């Protein structure tokens, strides 16, 4: 029941937010289908070497957003989600990732034009790669 998530040393985001974002991606990406049991707060804390205060906060946020549910005495599970909400969340996850990338680009002093050029560059490379069956 080990989740493929990690806490980044380079990221400036708080740990609970990193956990939340990564679990959300795993759920909307289908890697964690509805009903999948999640590790307990204590076990996840041990895996990630962070305190239960932090993991509890991440789980509470995920629960209040309707991604997971805790059954007393049984544990925490991935919740069933409507297709519409799933799509909405996918959009949001990707949007957030772009927001972060743009913020970083601005920090190193790139202009809107420069950022767009990089985006096009990345997309071109991807498309090329896909054509070649990479």
């Amino acid at each position, binding site marked *: 029941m080990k989740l493929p998530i990690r806490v980044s040393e380079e990221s400036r985001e*708080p740990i609970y937010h990193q956990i939340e974002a990564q679990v959300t991606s795993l759920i909307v990406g289908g890697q964690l289908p509805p009903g999948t049991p999640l590790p307990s707060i204590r*076990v996840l804390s041990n895996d990630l070497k962070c*305190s239960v205060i932090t993991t509890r906060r991440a789980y509470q946020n995920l629960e209040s957003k309707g991604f997971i549910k805790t059954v007393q005495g049984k544990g925490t599970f991935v919740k069933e989600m409507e297709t519409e909400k799933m799509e909405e969340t996918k959009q949001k996850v990707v949007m957030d990732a772009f927001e972060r990338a743009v913020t970083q680009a601005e920090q190193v002093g790139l202009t809107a034009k420069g950022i767009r050029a990089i985006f096009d560059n990345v997309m071109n490379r991807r498309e090329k790669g896909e054509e070649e069956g990479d």
Partner: protein
Amino acid sequence: MTKSIVLTKSLTKHYKKFTLGPIDFQIEEGTAVAIVGANGSGKSSFFRLLMNLLQPDEGSITLFDQSMNESEAEIKRKIGYSGGMLEPLGYLTVKEISSFFAYWYPTWDQEYYVNLINRYEIDTGMKFGKCSTGIKKRVEFIFSLSHHPTLLLLDEPSSGVDIVSQKKMKEDLIDFMEKGERSIVMATHSIDEVNSICDWITVFEKGQIIQSFNKDEIFEKWARVWVTDMTETIKQHPNFLELDVEPLQIVTNNWSEMEKELEKEGIAISHFQKMTLEEGLEYIISSESRNSIKKN
């Protein structure tokens, strides 16, 4: 609702050349606290005071909202303690000690005890006093757990213990915390134990608590920041801790505040790295001793 499992107020004990306290300490139900600090900083005395093996000169101790003076037996049945308590029973075999414990603790779980004895490969026919340091530690650890306490007080439980047993202890402690609202206070020198088990860290130095904080605070707020320039204003900033040259870098205990300050000074950040717990703790412990050398 969270409630205090251990609460001490102005707890003080005077020795000829050393004073422990005044110590104000608190631990909430369901959390694990690491007590760290140099040898001789008062950690063991603190544990002995909590267990009423030493009497304080001043201050008070409340465990499970009860005072030790009024309900010692009741309180102690809910505690698992590992810190040299078995030494006076050294002439007995492990098996004989276990019958004492089984008699004393209403919640003693013989089956669990036997499991642990096998898991840690203990020969119960050995006299406790004849066991090696590592075996003694393992036996004490087993006795601290076998009556399913709600609070564990562990004084360096894994020091002198082999790597495989240390790993087992870690697993057993995580397992212990899994079973409901339980708490641990643990003195340790192992960063790995702090990382895997503990939520809060309390730093002892010369008989005093010098810092108490949520473990993640270091990772969230502390950072090493590589910069293009340095000014006096930055060096005077309360969140500035240390300067290193070649390449120019600073240690800060609040990078978001420091970032704003650097921006005001027109200094750019070339690289940024959050601090590991190990680096942060090293810094806290060594800077306190640096400061006290200066004071003396």
